[in-house]
């Protein structure tokens, strides 16, 4: 039997029920998922996605580095290059067309903290309320 290196308690990334998960980790791979019986939302129950849907974490086609469009093709770039370009272009566009020419889509899949900070950039740095997410969808 595999003995896990560690078990980490966290929250399911799929639906709004918010089931509590125990990720069983061996050599940095999630190989099994269970749920504690005293979990507030799900009392140890999980659906098929929450129990088995984790191959995506280790998928071969996950993005490993930033990409930038050059000659109409996406090519690898360094973080510094990519981030500078993003900052530069956003400021240029803001100055040329005004803050409301930029829109930000935050995410129903991202954390509260990430969403908060991205809307803070929109409202507090760029100066636009054009913030939304696709979850009405």
């Amino acid at each position, binding site marked *: 039997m595999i003995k896990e290196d560690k078990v980490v308690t966290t929250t399911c990334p799929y639906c709004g029920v918010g089931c509590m998960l125990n990720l069983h980790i061996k050599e940095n791979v999630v190989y099994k998922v269970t749920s504690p019986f005293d979990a507030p939302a799900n009392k140890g129950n999980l659906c*098929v996605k929450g129990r088995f849907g984790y191959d995506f974490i280790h998928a071969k086609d996950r993005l490993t580095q930033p990409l930038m469009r050059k000659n109409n093709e996406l090519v690898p770039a360094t973080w510094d290059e990519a*981030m500078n370009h*993003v900052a530069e272009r956003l400021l240029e566009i803001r100055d040329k067309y005004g803050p409301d020419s930029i829109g930000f889509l935050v995410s129903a899949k991202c954390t509260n903290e990430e969403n908060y900070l991205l809307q803070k950039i929109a409202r507090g740095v760029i100066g636009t309320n054009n913030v939304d997410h696709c979850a009405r969808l």
Partner: protein
Amino acid sequence: MTNSIADIHLADVLMITGSNTTEAHPVISLEMKKAVRQHGAKLILVDPREIELAEFATLHLRPRSGTDVALYNAMAHAILENAWANDEFIKTRTENFDAFKEAIKDCTPQWAEDITGIPSEMIVEAAHMYGQARSASIFWAMGITQSSHGVDNVQSLANLALLTGNFGRPGTGLNPLRGQNNVQGACDMGGLPNVITGYQAVTDEAVRTKFENAWGMSVKIPAKPGITVTELMQGVLDGRVKALYIMGENPMLSDPNTNHVAEALNEIEFLVSQDIFLNETGQMAHVVLPGVSFAEKEGTYTNTERRVQLVRPALPTHADAKLDLDIICDLGRRLTNSNGKTSDAVIHPVSDWNYKDASAVWDEIASLTPIVAGMSYQRLNPNGLQWPCPTADHPGTPILHKEKFTRGLGKFTPLVFREPAENPDEEYPFVLNTGRLLQHWHGGTLTRRSEGLDWVVPEGEIQINDEDAQEMNVSSGDLIRVTSRRGVVTGKAKLTSKLPRRMIFMTFHFVEVPANKLTGAAVDPIAKIPEYKVSAVKVERV
């Protein structure tokens, strides 16, 4: 949800409408089934399809698509007519009752039968069950909200709960089931054009000043609300919107009328996609920034019952990807410290965008947001807390509206029934309905990479009523072509007796069979939610 998952089993009557809970919120459906089988609750199911919950239903109403307001107005009519209403509650805790009563005076069950196709006796029976319950709760999902009059639909349900006083006690309330894991949180955190965190309105000057001061800003937060995702896409085509920064979303697949989105993203001057995969939206981007999966990050999600729960890192960051929080802070520093070319308008380094960790970001959120002001990571460990939780010693709020409503009195909304934006006609005789399957998720980005899940359901099928199919000489597995006024999709037919005549059903999990090429661009005038459940289409054998 006004109530909690833990009190679902305490309801005498559950009314579930526009939610295929078994497939979309599986673990909540277990609680519903438990309420019925173990606790003897009655279940009123409102759904045109014969979904799994129909087996548990005491009463299954199958309305014509898009006629919800007519049904619920008629239920209210029957409740009043038969004196099943809670007069005490109406008197002490609500307002606008007279206007509401006047508005529905002609909405008899017979009138609704003609519109919805549901026999009037069943409507009265449902009104009786709901109206006479000691505690009755209403659940809904996208079937109610994804409509060109979704806000009306929700309000027609709220009217029923107000009429019968089903608020503030276990097993009652209005319980929208939120789709994605953190839709609730995205809204709570100001991921909307008109509110900052905790639904503090941008139109309120005091709110703006509070944030401007706390953030040490050099720019002003505009007093005018921004525009929604649907309007942003239109804005690109109109030339008003030049750049989009998209984090963790794939509007190319999830947006209604995807042809329109493709057109917009093709034309846009600058597009950034921050995601863990190169999805259809990323492929059109100018810069793609690799974030990480939930298993690598620390933070919080807020579930459908308003419970803020911890997400804990279990794995190291993948390859040269970065924590999403670090990417945003890095961007914040570059934008404010004028790295790269500078803009005169942004010369002041505002807050320094150096947070110790996710919990430091949370503490800033809590300090600016009354509904979560009492929450810290320490208190969220291990079981989370439900907002509102205004102070450090507040236990959180499993049931909303106990003594009074947030706005004081609960307000009845007089509603007029309106037809959906697009009804079937001679040329497009079928209704297309869309939704989810248990084994897959949203655009399929995550679940289709799971061998097991993809093995169980490897391809998108187009479900069609078996009698309709036989008339067209179509069997399961045959290719059929579905055409709407906006697009064409071809896929394999799957015959089923669970759909009413002249309805087809598709999911939006499969890129190869993209239902949203067919759906309409009609949106609710207030919530701006697109009509996904009613599109007129024609179906042909290929």
